[in-house]
């Protein structure tokens, strides 16, 4: 994959990421909002309501038939946090016209469709219709019901609520169920207006493309309402202290057959730094793959569970362990998870495991270039957080430079933040 080419077209930053190994083209229009979570549900709703309420295609039949005629063009919206800012992506993906006969203007039609999604929704008196708003609200509530019906998902959701209990402004849930009733037709419609009055906008195009052709498509077809504004882009600052008192919570459910255990350790590493790389290697040693200490000790040697793993989520600033085990073993397993980390801190892991863990990280990074969407997302994040392109080669070299001492040091820097158990009997209590 080639390095991204950055241009300014009609005042909008346009990034081309060219690659002849992919057979599809993706347009991504990215709106970055002012920092904060106040309008989190409005942004989440926008990602759905704009895709589902196009003025030009007022029914699913008309819209999806048009998309099918564009060779199954896939269109979707999403909202996510990058740093402290919420970002709305509107994305269309379709097969490259070079694989289709007589379809030279497919990219142009796809871009026009993307513009229709963003800039031409079905409105009444400059507001979304009451039905569209209600449908979205109902869907968000149904999503929550769905979440409740899947025990593993619900247990994880409740765990994150506990983790963020003392970091309320830092949790980005899409949607945020606790405040769903605060969103109104007015707040939603006003937030939509802000896309064009306040937000920063950029366009990313990936695939086997010719710059000149795409320059012309953008210049000639971008809706003039879409304009770029300066937005303050900030990082999420997590409260980190060695003196932190861990939150310990048990949630009881009468109807579960196994305990779900979640343990979160707070980190202080910044995105794309050497510490970030060291934490990723540490995570693999601890519980990130099938040779990790948690997997080999708790599952393979002690046979205490079927699944146990750890995940490092740099955006959430934690390394979290998840495990499902018999109720009778929950205290033993909870203790073992913590004991094993203590072993890592003092370097009680083999060189073989260290090398496997590091190689596993490097392989995962190298294979990033095999996925157009993952590679694109890394660039979007990197431009947002650092102002620079994502430098894959540099990241790989950083991982290669991680030593055993680096791993021990970041292990020592972890602070126990949350111990959460979703288990059987009794009533929920702190």
């Amino acid at each position, binding site marked *: 994959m080639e390095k991204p080419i950055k241009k300014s077209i009609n005042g909008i930053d346009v990034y081309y990421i060219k690659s002849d190994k992919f057979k599809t083209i993706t347009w991504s229009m990215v709106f970055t909002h002012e920092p904060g979570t106040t309008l989190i549900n409005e942004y989440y709703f926008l990602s759905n309501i704009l895709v589902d309420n196009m003025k030009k295609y007022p029914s699913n039949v008309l819209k999806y038939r048009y998309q099918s005629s564009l060779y199954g063009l896939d269109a979707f919206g999403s909202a996510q946090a990058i740093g402290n800012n919420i970002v709305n992506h509107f994305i269309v993906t379709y097969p490259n016209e070079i694989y289709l006969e007589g379809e030279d203007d497919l990219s142009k039609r796809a871009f026009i469709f993307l513009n229709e999604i963003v800039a031409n929704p079905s409105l009444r008196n400059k507001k979304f219709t009451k039905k569209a708003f209600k449908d979205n609200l109902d869907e968000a509530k149904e999503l929550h019901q769905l979440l409740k019906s899947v025990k593993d998902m619900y247990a994880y959701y409740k765990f994150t609520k506990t983790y963020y209990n003392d970091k309320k402004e830092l949790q980005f849930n899409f949607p945020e169920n606790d405040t769903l009733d605060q969103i109104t037709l007015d707040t939603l419609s006003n937030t939509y207006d802000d896309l064009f009055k306040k937000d920063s906008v950029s366009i990313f195009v990936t695939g086997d493309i010719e710059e000149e052709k795409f320059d012309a498509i953008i210049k000639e077809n971008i809706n003039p309402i879409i304009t770029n504004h300066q937005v303050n882009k900030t990082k999420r600052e997590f409260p980190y202290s060695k003196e932190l008192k861990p939150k310990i919570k048990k949630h009881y459910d009468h109807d579960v057959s196994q305990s779900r255990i979640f343990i979160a350790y707070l980190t202080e590493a910044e995105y794309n730094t050497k510490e970030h790389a060291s934490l990723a290697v540490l995570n693999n040693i601890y519980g990130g793959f099938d040779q990790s200490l948690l997997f080999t000790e708790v599952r393979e040697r002690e046979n205490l569970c079927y699944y146990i793993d750890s995940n490092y989520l740099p955006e959430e600033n934690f390394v979290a362990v998840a495990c499902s085990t018999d109720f009778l073993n929950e205290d033993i397993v909870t203790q073992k998870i913590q004991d094993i980390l203590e072993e890592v801190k003092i370097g009680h892991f083999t060189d073989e495991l260290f090398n*496997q863990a590091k190689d596993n990280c490097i392989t995962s990074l190298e294979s990033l270039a095999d996925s157009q969407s993952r590679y694109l997302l890394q660039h979007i994040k990197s431009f947002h957080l650092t102002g620079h392109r994502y430098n894959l080669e540099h990241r790989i070299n950083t991982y290669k430079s991680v030593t055993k001492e680096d791993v021990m040091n970041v292990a020592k820097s972890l602070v126990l933040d949350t111990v959460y158990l979703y288990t059987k009997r009794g009533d929920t209590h702190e």
Partner: protein
Amino acid sequence: MNKIKILKDEFVYVDTLKSGLQIAIHPTPNFKRTIVSLQVKFGGIDQLYKINNQKRQIPAGVAHFLEHMLFSNNGRNLAGEFSNYGANVNAYTSKSITSYKFSCIDHFDYLLDYFLTSFIEPDFSNKSIEKEKKIIAHELNMSMDSLHHKIYQKLKRLMYADKAVTSDVGGTVTDILDINQELLNEVFNTYYHPKNMSLIISGNVNPESVINHLNQHPYNLYEWPEFKSIERISDFKNMKTHHHTQKVKNNNTNMVSIGVTVPTYIFTKYPREFIHISLGSILSNAFGLASKNFDTLKKENLMNVSFSCNTNLERDYGYINIYIQTEKQEKYYQTIMKMIKDINKRSLDEELFDIDKKMILGNYISVFDSLSRIHDFIASCIVEDINLETYLENVMNLKFEDLNDLRNIFTKDNIYSVRYLK
């Protein structure tokens, strides 16, 4: 070696080694990763079979248990060795097959050798069998918490009488107690013969040198005993009770799961790809995003994100599963049942049928962007004996009237439902 064109610039090379192992290689020189999978035609359904005219009954869950055991046979640690080379290996068992898959960036030749060697003369220790029983028991217990799993199992038990069809791929905790070394060796010798397996490779490889390499591999040179054909015995008789509704304690939502069985004659009458393509086309026409039914369900607020409509085609049987969680279960149920029965009674939408072909072509091209998706597609075609060369052509040449016979399966005789109410 036979070279098959599957798109303008994409080819698959197929061959059969002396041992009988079928090979399919899809070179993708621009991709970093290489994916290899070994497909074994032995799955959860294979519990009763005839070999040498002798009937043999084995407990549920043996194929899945064997899959776990092959990661540590002969005292080897398959996953550990792959990790030493920055690679990873995994496996799954379905009703029809067991599939082992590894992916790597470097050391391809060595890893391929190591991988294949695991499938010659395995030696399972009693200690590791007992250890695996405990781990699998945890795995089976985990699914007990899932109402989605329970309603799906209940639907299967309504649709089919044979426990081999309805049982969980992993069996039950009681089933796996009966598994021992002797049984594992017996089923390995029955099913893990190269003539009952295929090897699929996608990635940055040279087909000719891979074939040369495989020809010299001990797996291929091994003196395999003669492959005895296996007569699988299953009973796909349908059940008399078609519909079941019950209240479920501590359930916070209504769940509606509908099944439509594909009669067994369909599997003998039509080529496999025709069934796939035609059923896909009918369902897209009936419940796809661009269908009138989908629009109606959406407008009447009977559609939500939990809705799914999937076709499950196993070796000799298959069914369609339509699922939703909804507050408006009664209205949804009446509406969707009528829509399902109408597939047979009313004409489908010919305009949509034609537009769908463009979508299918686009989706087919898009699959090549993901190495694992294209790998899985090729693997399923090889296992199901689908002609890769003519697949796309067959989709494009399908005529509207070709759907008529398959539309006839949507009658009350083949429709089943389970409702779990809160």
